[in-house]
């Protein structure tokens, strides 16, 4: 069965801390994505990666960075957490190619920055 896991379901961090959110998929997918979800705004794409060590900015990359050292793992990094980064963070993956349509989502990490 397809599986995307995220390291934490709930996380509380202080302003200014460096925060790591981890995502692992077991489907051998090339493409991986990080979104944040906020009420009334839907899902917004932060970063995505189409191969190991490759990354591309999404719609709201400011304040975030990513790392993809292995195919199965895609990390989101908040360099210096701020209260406006309090949100639900969702990771997703998809297979390569033009005919890859669906994305498979992890359960999400609810991050609170105080």
């Amino acid at each position, binding site marked *: 069965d397809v599986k*995307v896991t995220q390291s934490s*379901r709930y996380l509380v961090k202080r302003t200014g801390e460096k925060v790591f959110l981890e995502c692992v998929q077991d489907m051998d997918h090339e*493409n991986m*994505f990080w*979104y944040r979800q906020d009420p*009334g*705004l*839907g*899902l*917004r*794409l932060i970063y*995505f990666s*189409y191969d190991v060590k490759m990354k*591309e900015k*999404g719609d709201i990359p400011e304040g975030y960075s990513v790392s993809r050292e292995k195919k199965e793992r895609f990390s989101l990094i908040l360099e210096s957490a701020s209260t406006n980064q309090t949100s639900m963070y*969702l990771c*997703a993956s*998809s297979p*390569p*190619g*033009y005919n*890859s*349509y*669906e*994305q*498979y*989502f*992890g*359960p*999400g990490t609810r991050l609170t920055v105080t």
Partner: protein
Amino acid sequence: AQSVAQPEDQVNVAEGNPLTVKCTYSVSGNPYLFWYVQYPNRGLQFLLKYITGDNLVKGSYGFEAEFNKSQTSFHLKKPSALVSDSALYFCAVRDIYRGSTLGRLYFGRGTQLTVWP
């Protein structure tokens, strides 16, 4: 750029009644459209997609969606709602990243569906 709009933040329906969750889209080229569902404290689950072919697409849990090119709509429907259908529903459209074969999705803001007994 591609985009989708979900004009209703909330939809309320009684159990056993038909339900519709609306979505309209704006794309250049052929639209690739999706519906996802999110249950409380869970990630998104894929429901169905329209790529090409029949305008009525059937998906998981008895849901279906009707693609209407002239109205640029892709409404989600179910003939008889269940209380367990209560969830947050997202419409999405696919775009291709900068001439590559990598697809990315643009999501609507979501519609909260509540089905009461």
